[in-house]
């Protein structure tokens, strides 16, 4: 019981004294996962929308592949990103393994199928005649896609939440491609793993509380936007 109370106490001390190391780790987590989510939104929404709006042979297979990708295990992603970025790997020349950039790459790979899958479903769930209605109003194809994305904005907010939630809490890939280097690639999750393995439960718990608060805060903001949009 002491461990828990001590942990919570320690966590708040670290938080309120603005411990530079904790702040640094938190900031890096936010930055890395934020950028990864942003990139995955660009790719996921555009490709997801495109797939939803076009008919081609093998569409079902592509959709089931994307849906499978939504549950991609982070360690598997970590392994493949490591292999690609390895010194003599296909992308070794980029020399970004064990940097924050490598974590961004891995997290983007994790978040993209999540965003893509949700976007695809969101666009597909719009009424079938809505596309025709928009075209009949004189829209170009691009205008039509933009209006459809705007119509699907509420489920797309869910895509942002799911994508961000997926990568901020992920540890396997971050530790493999980032290396948990102090002050450089150490993020909240990797730090928590390390502190726990060292038996520093108080610090680990402090980091976990920050992680929870972060996830809660971001989702609260997005949920607020979503609820305000659709008054009932």
């Amino acid at each position, binding site marked *: 019981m002491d461990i828990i109370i001590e942990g919570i106490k320690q966590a708040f001390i670290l938080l309120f004294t603005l411990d530079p190391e904790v702040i640094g780790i938190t900031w890096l987590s936010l930055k890395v996962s934020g950028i990864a989510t942003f990139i995955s939104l660009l790719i996921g929404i555009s490709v997801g929308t495109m797939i939803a709006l076009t008919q081609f042979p093998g569409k079902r297979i592509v959709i089931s592949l994307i849906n499978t990708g939504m549950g991609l295990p982070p360690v598997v992603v970590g392994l493949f990103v490591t292999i690609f970025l390895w010194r003599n790997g296909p992308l070794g020349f980029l020399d970004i393994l064990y940097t924050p950039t490598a974590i961004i790459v891995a997290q983007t790979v994790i978040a993209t199928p999540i965003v893509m899958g949700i976007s695809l479903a969101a666009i597909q769930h719009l*009424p079938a*005649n*809505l596309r*025709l*209605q928009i*075209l*009949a*109003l*004189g*829209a*170009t194809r691009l*205008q039509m896609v933009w*209006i459809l994305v*705007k*119509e699907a*904005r*509420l489920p797309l907010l869910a895509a942002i939440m799911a994508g961000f939630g997926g990568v901020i809490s992920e540890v396997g890939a971050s530790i493999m491609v980032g290396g948990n280097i102090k002050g450089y690639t150490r993020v909240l999750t990797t730090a928590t793993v390390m502190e726990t393995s060292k038996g520093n439960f108080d610090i680990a718990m402090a980091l976990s509380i920050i992680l929870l608060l972060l996830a809660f805060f971001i989702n609260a903001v997005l949920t607020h936007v979503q609820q305000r949009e*659709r*008054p009932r």
Partner: protein
Amino acid sequence: MNSEKSILEANNLQVKRGGVPVLNISYLGIPEGKVLCFIGPNGAGKSSLLLALSCLLKLFRGEIIFRGKRVGSNYTIFDYRRNLSMVFQEPLLFDTTVFENVAAGLRIRGVKQDEVKRVVEEYLERFGICHLANRSARRLSGGEAQRTSLARAFAIRPEIIFLDEPFSSLDPPTRESLMGDLELILRATKTTGIMATHDQMEALRLSDQIAVMNEGKIIQIGSPTEVMNHPVNEFVASFVGTETILTGKVIKRDTGTFSVSVAGRDIEAVGDASPGESVILCIRPENVTISTGSSKEITSARNVFSSVVKRIIPSGTFYKVELDCGFPLVTYVTNNAREDLSMHEGMDVTASFKATAIHVIRKKLLSSSGD
């Protein structure tokens, strides 16, 4: 088929869905400023035809000509689409305010803000939804939503408006009031209307021309009375119903009733209409009674006409009887009644129906254009 100038023509139109032909139209010409209604059962190809004519559906074969320009060759589909708009059975509103919905087509065209405001307000007014301008489109009743959809379609001031069963999901009173407004606006703006419906009353009310469709083909096209009274085949006859549809001019008005001259005979109907006005009278067969010329029955019916039996058509448990009273009239008799009256073709009978049994469609707005 008509000598008037066609705003839109279709030649040899063929459409396939999933490899199955759903539409096969050899020629169709749509006169400018008129309203054409396609009627037919579900699956007749009405919706497909509307989509094909608006180039929202890929043609398997054929051409569409708008104001003499062939769409898709020297005139792009996109340019063509900017002349028209479409209203579906579902209102398909965007998740924003009523104002922004009506503005959508104008925003797509990059119209300036003050112009958008002016036009949107005009059409909100015309459809009686000014008070809803700032309401979310998600919180509208069915009728309000369809009004918004119609206002959105008219706000871009299209040359042709396509209406695909626009009233089908509305309750009768809502439908009635919206139809009245639509009729006024169609006439006021002189917009060419192309509508699909399975309701012949809607078609009669709004259209200058009716086209009956079945299995992807146009079976008959013509003026409402022509199609209703002279169906070209059994299918059209059974689809347009066995109702008698007559056009006439109001000649006299009394309190609560008025007289209509149809083919030289006067018919009395209940309601209000002014002399000189064109009206359509619909009489259901079950409201027409026949007696033989000899029997002097006293009837309370206001409309009694001596007539001749033209045809007796067996229809299951009863017979459908076509009479000639100077105008065509259809009625039903049971097998027993037919035997009792020893009815045969060419026989003289007396037909009667009550003034209250007539369904009157006022075509006030059309009278100026003649029949």
